[in-house]
């Protein structure tokens, strides 16, 4: 627990939460159910950010069409995050570049960080929930 933890109004502690997304959006349920935790966390008024690494960067792809696989398309949920005050979205540069992607491929605005920078950011977190 960080000692310089902020206090929210009413005296409760505010922790730094990072939701770390490592898996492709379809193929497994991790991304979809992971997103459900992120949305719920907004009700707790914590300091929340999301990070996307490995195949997790595919979660933010524009123009996803899921009709061929019979799955519900939840891409738009990432655009709704801002309405929940979740606007700190980080993408690991190495993962993005290894997959031939650029920031222009994403459905939302993100901050691109190197692996080392993201590692430093992780070290500052109180809680990391990874899927």
């Amino acid at each position, binding site marked *: 627990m960080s000692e310089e933890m902020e206090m929210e109004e009413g005296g409760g*502690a505010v922790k730094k939460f990072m939701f770390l997304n490592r898996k492709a959006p379809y193929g497994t349920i*991790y991304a979809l159910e992971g997103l459900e935790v992120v949305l719920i966390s907004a009700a707790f008024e*914590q300091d929340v950010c999301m990070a996307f690494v490995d195949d997790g960067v595919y979660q933010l792809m524009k123009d996803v069409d899921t009709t061929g696989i019979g799955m519900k398309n939840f891409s738009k949920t990432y655009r709704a995050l801002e309405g929940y005050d979740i606007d700190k979205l980080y993408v690991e540069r190495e993962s993005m570049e290894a997959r031939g992607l650029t920031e222009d491929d994403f459905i939302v605005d993100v901050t691109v960080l190197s692996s080392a920078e993201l590692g430093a950011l992780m070290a500052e977190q109180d809680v990391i929930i990874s*899927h």
Partner: protein
Amino acid sequence: MKFAILVNEGPYTHQASDSAYQFAKAALAKGHEIYRVFFYHDGVNNASRLTVPPQDDRHIVNRWSALAQEHGIDLVVCIAAAQRRGVLDENEAKRHGKDANNIAPGFRISGLGQLVEAGIQADRLVTFGD
């Protein structure tokens, strides 16, 4: 120290539940507190009392139930993840018109807020899964 544990994988297929259990046992033996164990994704299948492993194998579900009973540990199963996968308690079975329920003793079904709250209350949240 006060730990919260997140189990993201089902029993037997994956080591996650075994490792989480061994971790919880070891932490308790050292005098630490387990604030809550939260079961998410396929982890909800750890709560099915209809689980029948071969007799010479460990009984993962009963082991969690026994740990809850001995140490008063809060075992919480995510309601949305559980319903998708057919893990129901008596109330949920009734509410959805199902003819049976299958939740094991010591487990309770609740919302994802219980996971976030555990992250806030515990000193460390430890995740077991892929």
